[in-house]
């Protein structure tokens, strides 16, 4: 729906007529225009290869509009990309696909999508119907492959054959559902014994279930009730075994309508859905994996005139912008509600507008029809400077990397400017038609969470308190005065049963103050703790509020030494000497247990420069080079004296 009109033939003949030296700038210009249809991307990639310019294929792949990917496009893209030397430095990702149905088109869609998302994927398809063997056999092909993720596919017949075959318990399907989902749970439990790979399950459709005509919704054994019960059981399973995720294929089927089913493939090929649906299913799984790996993007920066509301507030006046119960105002109102839904999911909202600040802010104050209020907004930049500069300032104020940002603007020119100047920012093609925009915002999967914790609900408040702190800081004579006036208290201790989810989330989300960027999920953290590691975490509160759990470290005891495997802190509390107080607590614990040395590691990444000096500042000796890159630092526990900091430490 958001695809720009593209003349593939014209683009190809343009490319043919270019001199070799101009190809790079031609590709760069295409990138400014945003996503392209997959067929166009495949054709251009093939032409680039023929021109001996295969090094640009990786960049072209990122332009692919994956929501429009067909099974044929996916095959073409995969074949092309496999044959081309994809740029070095792409993160490798190993995915095992297994199930109880034919999944080749899913695997192809998944691989094409991961390629387009910037990975170097290795996707392997297990033998047909080997789901339970693959998961249970610690020496089997799936386990030996050592995947990072397993994507599982089934239909109702494959998951709970009792429901489809015997028709014994039509009035009470609960027993058959328990048996089917229970079998899967047992296999996943076995899998967890020998692998920490994340597992992607999916909801089922009701296609093959008994549909009791007009009475269906009222019958406990009807298709609607049975489907709901199966999917609820699958969701509960994800809550019981960590590192298991559920993608909503039933919802995908609803979106695709008649294109989802394909009786030829179902009955001849054992496909649970059409080839294009299986491709879209693979893309959905790839998007889920991407968010599990990187966390969702954290900030939506939104333009105001003709994006947040209809009309130019400086021309029509702040009280007269289009927003409200009638069209087109209702489309803008729904757009604002979609943004507020994102806020409830922990996404920060920011504003960026070329406007007179007073006039634009007056809309929030005086237009009573708005759903979004100024206190929903974490930060704003309104002025006449170029938008890339305003967005860079927002990143600085919120203390977040630009790769956490999404930018929504109705103007193709502004979108192109931001894409060119700030390539890390995701700039989707906001539909020109306002009625399509609310659903479009909700469909941006890079903003979809895989878990929600309590700290997501109040993230915006936390950032508002941050602004108050900044004001106090600028009024304080010195940094020391400012920190003392905050009255900081660090509550610290070993992570309890209910704390793993948040600490795992920090491992996924934290980039800047992250000493090793080892992204353990909840399953891995629990396993390492069961094997003797210690996981410490601290929450910080001050006069402006409670920032929640914001600092954590995973400590591996190795004889008389403690090795700090991960040490990370949320950017919310950076620059407030919390890490010093936290390390003081760890040193104290080490002393109590007779530990002689604490070893810290620093592995540089593109984004953790702010953490480079931490161990030096804390008095660790080093750096000593580590095999395979990185630095090792050492602290003698007996003689260690950490700097005195204005943070009160309270043990949990």
């Amino acid at each position, binding site marked *: 729906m958001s695809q720009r009109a593209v003349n593939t033939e014209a683009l190809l003949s343009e490319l043919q007529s270019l001199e070799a030296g101009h190809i790079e700038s031609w590709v760069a210009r295409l990138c400014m225009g945003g996503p392209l249809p997959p067929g166009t991307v495949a054709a251009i990639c093939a032409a680039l290869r023929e021109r001996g310019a295969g090094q640009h294929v990786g960049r072209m792949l990122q332009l692919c509009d994956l929501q429009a990917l067909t099974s*044929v496009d996916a095959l073409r893209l995969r*074949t092309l990309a496999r044959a081309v030397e994809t740029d070095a430095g792409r993160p490798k990702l190993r995915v095992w696909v297994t199930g109880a149905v034919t999944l080749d088109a899913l695997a192809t869609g998944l691989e094409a999508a991961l390629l387009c998302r910037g990975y170097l994927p290795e996707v392997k398809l297990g033998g047909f119907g080997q789901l339970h063997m693959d998961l249970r056999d610690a020496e089997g092909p799936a386990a030996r492959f050592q995947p990072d993720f397993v994507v599982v596919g089934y239909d109702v017949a494959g998951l709970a054959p009792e429901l489809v075959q015997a028709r014994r318990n039509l009035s009470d399907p609960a027993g058959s559902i328990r048996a089917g989902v229970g079998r899967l749970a047992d296999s996943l439990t076995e899998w967890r014994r020998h692998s920490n790979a994340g597992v992607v399950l999916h909801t089922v459709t009701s296609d093959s279930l008994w549909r009791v005509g007009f009475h269906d919704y009222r019958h406990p054994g009807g298709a609607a009730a049975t489907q709901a019960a199966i999917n609820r059981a699958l969701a509960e399973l994800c809550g019981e075994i960590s590192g298991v995720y559920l993608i909503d294929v039933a919802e995908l089927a609803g979106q695709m309508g008649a294109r989802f089913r394909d009786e030829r493939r179902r009955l001849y090929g054992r496909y649970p859905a059409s080839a294009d649906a299986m491709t879209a299913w693979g893309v959905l799984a790839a998007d889920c994996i991407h968010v599990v790996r990187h966390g969702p993007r954290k900030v939506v920066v939104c333009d105001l005139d003709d994006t947040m509301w209809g009309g130019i507030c400086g021309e029509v006046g702040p009280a007269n912008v289009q927003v409200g119960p009638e069209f087109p105002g209702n489309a803008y109102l729904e757009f604002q509600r979609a943004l507020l839904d994102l806020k409830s999911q922990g996404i920060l909202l920011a504003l960026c507008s070329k406007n007179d600040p007073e006039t634009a802010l007056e809309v929030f104050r005086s237009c009573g029809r708005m759903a979004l209020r100024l206190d929903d907004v974490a930060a704003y930049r309104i002025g006449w400077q170029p938008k890339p500069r305003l967005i860079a300032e927002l990143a600085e104020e919120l203390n977040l990397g630009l790769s956490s940002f999404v930018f929504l603007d109705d103007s193709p020119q502004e979108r192109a400017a931001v894409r060119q100047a700030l390539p890390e920012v995701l700039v989707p093609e906001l539909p020109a038609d306002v009625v399509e925009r609310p659903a479009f915002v909700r469909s941006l999967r890079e903003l979809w969470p895989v878990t929600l914790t309590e700290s997501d609900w109040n993230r915006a408040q936390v950032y508002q308190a941050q602004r108050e702190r900044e004001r106090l800081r600028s009024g304080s004579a010195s940094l020391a005065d400012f920190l003392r006036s905050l009255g900081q208290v660090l509550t610290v201790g070993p992570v309890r049963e209910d704390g793993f989810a948040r600490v795992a989330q920090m491992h996924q989300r934290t980039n800047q103050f992250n000493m090793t960027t080892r992204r353990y999920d909840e399953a891995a953290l629990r396993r390492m703790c069961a094997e003797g590691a210690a996981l410490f975490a601290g929450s910080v509160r001050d006069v402006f509020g409670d920032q929640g759990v914001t600092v954590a470290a995973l400590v591996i005891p190795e004889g008389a030494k403690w090795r700090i495997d991960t040490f990370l802190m949320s950017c919310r509390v950076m620059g407030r000497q919390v890490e010093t107080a936290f390390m003081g607590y760890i040193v104290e614990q080490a002393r109590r247990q007779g530990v002689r040395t604490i070893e810290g590691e620093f592995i540089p990444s593109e984004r953790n420069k702010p953490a480079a000096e931490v161990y030096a500042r804390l008095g660790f000796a080093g750096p000593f080079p580590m095999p395979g890159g990185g630095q090792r630092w050492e602290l003698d526990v007996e003689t260690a004296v950490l700097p005195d900091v204005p943070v009160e430490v309270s043990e949990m």
Partner: protein
Amino acid sequence: MTGEPVDRVVAGVLKDLLGYAGPISDDLGPPDVQGWDSVAHISIIEELESRLGVKFTTEELVAMGDVRAIKETLARHHAREPQPG
């Protein structure tokens, strides 16, 4: 229905879907082309359907084991089509 020779259409489909660029003969079938398995077969025949503007039955799809069978099935479809004029 396009006027393009069937061999050329088959060659295009095999190249796009499986990266096959070898010669096309009447005997060419799944054993001769890497990746032409029973699952890819459905995609290949469906792509032919779309490029040739025909719709095969699933039983025909299953029976089309080489290029010759594809041509014969197509010829049967043409014979069934109402003739213009």
